[in-house]
């Protein structure tokens, strides 16, 4: 294990990629210097940030001489390089399972869900700012795929085919996850791991943004899994760092079925 130096984390909201690094740092009880990079103000495309992370993605972790920009491998790095409880399973089959699922969350489910997020939240929120500034900032984005996503979000230009495929993937992803949680209590197997943290930074929003598909009747095991994670002090601490209303989506998880009925 390396000598612990105080790491510096550039992050946005406790959501998706930035949330992964914030949550593992909190779970391990690591003291870090946090810098909030306002994604909606395009701060991730400013020269000083691009000097650290030329792709302009969030988060970035600086630890001594090491600069890390890929959020999921970053979680494994943090778990291995710092003292504290371990969240990587000790069993190789469970490590394989955890990694497969993390890729599934990152590359299959996240893009499907984020299309709705860009349409419903990021586009409208960015439009509250000066459109000229935003357009100019978009033109400076290094990654073509990101530039395209921002343009579509600003002008609500997602095609029906894209939205429909994104919904299909989302529903299929929920189906696979529910089936997986019938087999195991946690993503890797018997214990809470990086895989659960990764999935939670995405999944905490399922019940509030897609209540018709993710609820106590249709996906009881996912709801139970979300509640078990939500009860962890590190989760509460991490989500308290949120500055936008995204963080409030955590509360939809805690609403139990009976309370739902009372509400109706």
């Amino acid at each position: 294990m390396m000598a612990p130096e105080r790491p510096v984390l550039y992050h946005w909201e406790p959501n998706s990629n930035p949330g992964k690094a914030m949550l593992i740092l909190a779970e391990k009880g690591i003291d870090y210097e946090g810098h909030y990079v306002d994604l909606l103000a395009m701060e991730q495309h400013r020269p000083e940030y691009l000097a650290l992370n030329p792709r302009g993605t969030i988060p970035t972790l600086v630890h001594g001489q090491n600069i890390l920009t890929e959020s999921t491998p970053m979680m494994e790095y943090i778990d291995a390089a710092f003292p504290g409880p371990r969240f990587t399973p000790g069993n190789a089959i469970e490590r394989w399972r955890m990694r497969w699922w993390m890729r599934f969350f990152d590359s299959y489910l996240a893009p499907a869900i984020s299309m709705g997020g860009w349409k419903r939240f990021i586009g409208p929120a960015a439009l509250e700012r000066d459109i000229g500034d935003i357009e100019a900032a978009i033109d400076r984005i290094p990654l073509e795929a990101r530039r395209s996503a921002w343009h579509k979000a600003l002008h609500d230009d997602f095609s029906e085919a894209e939205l429909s495929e994104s919904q299909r993937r989302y529903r299929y992803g929920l189906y696979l996850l529910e089936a997986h949680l019938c087999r195991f209590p946690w993503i890797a197997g018997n214990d809470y791991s990086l895989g659960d943290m990764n999935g939670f930074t995405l999944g905490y929003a399922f019940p509030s943004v897609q209540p018709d598909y993710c609820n106590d009747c249709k996906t009881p095991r996912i709801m139970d899994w979300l509640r078990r994670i939500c009860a962890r002090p590190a989760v509460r601490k991490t989500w308290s760092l949120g500055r936008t209303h995204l963080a409030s989506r955590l509360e939809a998880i805690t609403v139990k079925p009976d309370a739902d009925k009372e509400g109706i």
Partner: protein
Amino acid sequence: MPALYHWEPNTFYLKPLIALHEKGVRFSSHYIDPTATAFDIRPDCLDASIEVLNNPEREGPMLIESGEVICGSFFMLEFIADFYPGPELAPRDPMLYYRIQEIGQTLGVQLATLVGPLGCERYLLPKLRKRDAVQLNAALSAMEPVERRHVWQAVLDLEGNTQEFARLHSKLAGSLQEIESLLDASDWLVGEDYSIADIEVFSMIHSLPVLTPELLHPGCTPKIVSFLQRMQSRPAVRAALAMSRTGHPERCFVPGIEPSRWLGL
């Protein structure tokens, strides 16, 4: 004894073959031709072999160890490095391990999306053209999961699409330059030692001197040329390539579900 279900030693299928040989693991080899299983249109045979149905990805290598189905070719490499005794194939240093995962997640996926379609266009498409179009479409529309259907359809759509072909070709040139830069500092892609990162990248590019010789040659990518020679001189790599039944593994491509699955929308 672990069982490996695989096809010709190229791209996704080559990765676990090399890693298992490097570790000196005895395994039972089960050869499956995905071009046959994908397009066998008799209803009772459509992807019906138990080996294929057991593979959640339906295409690509599958390793059975201790009753568990291990799939996903990069994660399979991590698993083999992790689980079996024998020579170290992955560094213990957390930052070097991060670099390996970064390569698997970015360069590995990128290469799969480029090399696969270009190889399929050259070698698989002519075979598909000979099939009856109605039967081909019927087989395609029955193909599961949907992501796999999409990548096979994308191969058929490459027919005559010079613009898409040029785009893939140009992106591949960029990826090769990225690999050339990674080899600036060392003979191997991560740190000073041979690792699963080298197996990952080699498996995806070893066919390129034949497939796209204009992009990979001593004048343009000298470090990659030396890297391929170093890899090919390893006994484990030779043993893996010798498992070919066609004698030309460098001509055997299927789209593979992984790029479609992992590239998102």
